C-alpha cells in the first residue's frame, strides 16, 4: 500500500485562556482535540464543520502557522512537529495554504508581480529577476489571469480574481499539498463555480493534493474524495464521500445534511432540527461533545468519550451507537 502523503495522529491544539481574577488555574480552549487522519497523494480530503469547530485551526496547525500542542504530523515521511525553523521553512514550499478572505490575505501595497515574486524568491525559485518575472507570467496564465496584470495592485481586482492570485501564490512554489481554508465562501455563486473549477484543473495538471476546509456541505461534496466531519475540535465521522452521503452514520452528520436546503422545490426534506447552539469549546460537555443536542443520547454519552470505531475499512465514526461495547445501551 502506498504511504500517505500526510498523516496526522492525535493532533491537539489548545489555547490557554485566563478565566477570572481570583481563579489561578489556567483554562484551555481545546480548538483541536485529538484528530487523526491521513491524506493520500492526489486525493482531496474535505473537512466540513460549523463555525468554531476548529477546522481552520486544524489547517493552520498542520502547517505550524499555529503551534500544535500535541500529536504527530508526518509529511512525506518527515515529522513536522519537531522541525526547526529553517527546515520548516523549506518544508513549507511543499505545503501551502489558500485563505478565505482574498481581501485580507494579499498585501494591498504590493503589486501582483511582487506578491508572487516574493513567494518565488523566498524559496529560491528562479535565479534572476528576469526568470522570476517569466515564472510569474506563467503563473498568472495558469490561474486564468493575464500576464498584463503583473503590475496591478490587489484592489484593482474583483474578489474572484483576488482568490486566483491567492491560488497562484500557493502554487508558485510547486507544492505537493495545498490546504484550502474556506477558499470560496467569500465569493458570489457564479464566481465561486469558476474558482472551484480552477482548483479541479490545477489538481489534474499539477498533480496536487488538497485538504479542502469549508462549511458549505455542497461545495465539499463537489470537490472531495473523502470527507471528515468536525464537531467541537474532533472529527466525528470520516468516510468516503459516496458512503457518507448515502448513509451518514453520526447523528451530527445526519442533522448537518438534512439542514442544507435543497435546490429542488419538490424535495421536502425530512429535516432533523438540532436544538440549541454549538457548546463553547472553552467548556465542552462531558462525554460525547454532541450529546447535548443528540436525539439518540443515552446515559453513557454523558460520561464516556466515544472512541473511534472503524465501521467498515476506511470508514470511521465517533459514536457509541456503533460501538459493540455499548450495544446494550442502545437497545
Amino acid at each position, binding site marked *: 500500500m502506498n504511504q500517505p502523503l500526510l498523516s496526522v495522529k492525535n493532533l491537539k491544539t489548545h489555547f490557554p485562556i485566563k478565566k477570572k481574577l481570583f481563579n489561578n488555574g489556567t483554562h484551555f480552549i481545546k480548538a483541536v482535540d485529538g484528530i487523526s487522519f491521513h491524506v493520500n497523494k492526489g486525493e482531496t480530503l474535505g473537512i466540513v464543520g460549523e463555525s468554531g469547530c476548529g477546522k481552520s485551526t486544524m489547517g493552520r496547525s498542520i502547517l505550524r502557522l499555529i503551534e500544535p500542542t500535541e500529536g504527530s504530523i508526518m509529511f512525506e515521511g518527515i515529522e513536522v512537529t519537531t522541525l526547526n525553523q529553517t527546515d520548516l521553512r523549506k518544508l513549507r514550499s511543499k505545503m501551502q495554504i489558500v485563505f478565505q478572505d482574498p481581501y485580507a490575505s494579499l498585501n494591498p501595497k504590493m503589486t501582483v508581480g511582487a506578491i508572487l515574486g516574493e513567494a518565488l524568491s523566498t524559496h529560491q525559485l528562479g535565479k534572476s529577476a528576469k526568470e522570476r518575472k517569466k515564472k510569474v507570467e506563467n503563473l498568472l496564465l495558469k490561474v486564468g489571469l493575464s500576464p498584463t496584470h503583473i503590475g496591478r495592485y490587489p484592489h484593482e481586482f474583483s474578489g474572484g480574481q483576488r482568490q486566483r492570485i491567492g491560488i497562484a501564490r500557493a502554487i508558485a512554489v510547486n507544492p505537493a499539498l495545498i490546504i484550502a481554508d474556506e477558499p470560496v465562501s467569500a465569493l458570489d455563486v457564479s464566481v*465561486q463555480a469558476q474558482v*472551484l473549477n480552477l482548483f479541479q484543473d490545477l489538481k489534474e495538471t499539477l498533480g496536487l493534493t488538497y485538504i479542502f476546509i469549508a462549511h458549505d*456541505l*455542497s*461545495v465539499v461534496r*463537489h470537490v472531495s474524495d473523502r470527507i471528515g466531519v468536525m464537531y467541537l475540535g474532533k472529527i466525528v465521522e470520516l468516510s468516503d464521500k459516496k458512503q457518507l452521503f448515502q448513509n451518514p452514520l453520526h447523528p451530527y452528520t445526519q442533522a448537518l445534511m*438534512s439542514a442544507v*436546503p435543497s*435546490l429542488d422545490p419538490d424535495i421536502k426534506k425530512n429535516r432533523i*432540527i438540532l436544538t440549541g447552539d454549538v457548546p463553547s469549546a472553552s467548556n465542552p460537555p462531558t462525554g460525547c461533545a454532541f450529546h447535548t443536542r443528540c436525539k439518540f443520547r443515552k446515559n453513557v454519552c454523558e460520561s464516556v468519550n466515544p472512541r473511534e470505531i472503524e465501521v467498515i475499512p476506511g470508514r470511521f465514526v465517533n459514536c457509541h451507537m456503533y460501538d459493540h461495547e455499548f450495544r446494550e445501551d442502545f437497545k
Partner: protein
Amino acid sequence: MTIELLKVENFQISFKDDEAGTISAVKDLSFHINEGETVGLVGESGCGKSVTALSIMRLIEKNSSFTEGKTVFEGEDINLFTEKKMQSIRGNKISMIFQEPMTSLNPVHKIGKQIGEVLHLHRFANKTNSMDKTIEILKKVGIPRAESIVNEYPHQLSGGMRQRVMIAMAMACNPKLLIADEPTTALDVTIQAQILDLMNTLQEEYNTAILLITHDLGVISEMADRVIVMYYGQIVEQADVRTLFKQPKHPYTIGLLNSVPNIDSENESRLTPIDGNVPNLGVIKSGCPFRARCQHAHVKCHEENPPLFKLESQYVRCWLYDEQGGIV
C-alpha cells in the same frame, strides 16, 4: 382568494457619486406581494436587492439618493406619507430583519427593553404589561429562559439567539409584511434550519407575507412561493418557485443554477460557471447588462436593453424570448 398586499411600481433608485455623477442602482422595478405569500428576491452582491428593501421601508437617506416610483401598501402609496405616519407603519405593519443581528441590535440596551420599546411605540403594551408581553413573544420564537434573557445584553447571546430576538422584535406587532434581508447568511446551517423553520411557523400562525432577500438559491427553493431574480438593478426573471427551478429561462438564472453544486445530486462533473464578473454599477450605459457574460449575446443585446417579456408562466428580460411573449 389572493389579496394584494404590497405593490412596488417603477422603482428607480440612484445614488449621487462625486466622481461618476449619478449611479443608478435599481431600474424599472415593479412587483407585488400577496397576503401570506413568500416572495424570494435573489441575486448576487450589488444587484440592488437590499436597496430595494430599504426603499420600501423608506430607510434610504434622501440626501444621497433619488428614489422614484410608488410603493402601494394596503391600497395607499406610502411614499406620500409623512415621516410621522411612516413611523407608525415601520415595525408595526411592515417590519424588517437584517443579516447581521449584532449590528442591528443596540449593544447598550437589554433585550427586554429593546423589544418593549417596539410594543410601547405602537401601543401594543403599556408600561405595566410590556415585560410580560416581551417574555411571551420571546417564548414564541423559541428562546429558552426568556425570563432571564430579557435582562441580558445582545453580546451575551449566540448568533442564532440574536437572530431569534430580531425576529421576535419584528413579529412583536404582528406585521402584515416581514422583509427579511439575508436573515440566515451569517448563521451556520443547523442554526439556519432552526430560523427558517421558525419563520415558517410564524408565517402560518399570523399569515404574514414575507419578502425574503437572499443570495442562497437553496433557501429560496425551500421557502419561497414566487421568485424574483435580479441582476444589475433589474428584474431579469420572475416565476413561481417550481417553474423557476425546473424551467429557468433567462441565461443568468440558468447560469446561477448551474454554478451551484447540488447537495442532492451525485453529479461529479465540472460546474458550469458564468464567465466574468458582475460589472460595477454605472459602467454599462446601454444594452443588456448581462450581455458580456452571456453565450447568447447578439447585436441587439448591445444596442437595446430588453423589456420584460411575459411568457406563459413567467417573466423574462431577454431578447431570446422576443417573439414568444408580449411586452409587459
